[in-house]
């Protein structure tokens, strides 16, 4: 089971919005067996290591980047999904990361 975490620094539910979009995308493309969850920056450092793909909509801090590098987590820019402008860029990166996990 692949696990994706989406993190934002904001109280405006940006990460929940991105989770919703990614889940819809998976459903539309019949992609199953992937968990997508949202969190905020405060909680992220403690839980990030449990995930395979990190979708960011606020710039990762050094601490976060360190965890990403150490644990070999795929890091994907989620802003195109958030703004709805060329979201396929992000989806492609997510799919690529999922495929890499399977190989």
């Amino acid at each position, binding site marked *: 089971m692949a696990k994706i975490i989406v993190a*934002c*620094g*904001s*109280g*405006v*539910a*940006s990460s*929940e*919005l991105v989770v*919703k979009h990614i889940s819809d995308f998976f459903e539309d493309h019949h992609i199953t067996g992937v968990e997508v969850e949202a969190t905020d*920056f405060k909680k992220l450092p403690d839980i990030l290591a449990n995930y395979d793909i990190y979708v*960011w*909509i*606020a*710039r990762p801090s050094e601490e976060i980047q360190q965890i990403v590098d150490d644990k070999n987590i795929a890091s994907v*820019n*989620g*802003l195109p999904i*958030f*703004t*709805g*402008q060329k979201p396929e860029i992000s989806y492609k990166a997510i799919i690529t990361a999922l495929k890499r996990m399977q190989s």
Partner: protein
Amino acid sequence: MDYQTMLKPELIFLNVDAEDRIDLYQQVAKELLKLGYVKDSYESALNQREDEFPTGVVSDLISIALPHANPENIYKPFVCVVTTRKPIPMLQMGYNTEEQAKVFFFLGITHADDQLILLQKFMALIQDPIFVKHLDKIHDNAEMFTYLTKEFK
């Protein structure tokens, strides 16, 4: 919470004279405080959030910002629509690169779930040429309120 009711005629401020972000936020926070939407702590929370996580968003058509603070600084939910006479330098969400914004949607959120649709709506609207043209064209508060209410249906 119906997000349409978060738009209020009294929370539309067009062609505001502001020197910079700090000045603009001060003016807006003062109005929101006076009208009973936010707590004393709102202005500093707004600035802190903006410094930490910028809220600017750029589409092919327009640069906007969605300033907001944590729910504990808010008394009742609102969307406050502000346009400025001159562009204000802001930073883009996620990229932290500079943009010049003249349109600001201050989001007063008490429950995160309320605004999923609201955010989605904003993102769609700033990519709609007709909407962007209207934003630029309307200089009357009442007319802006009517227009936005219609668009947010």
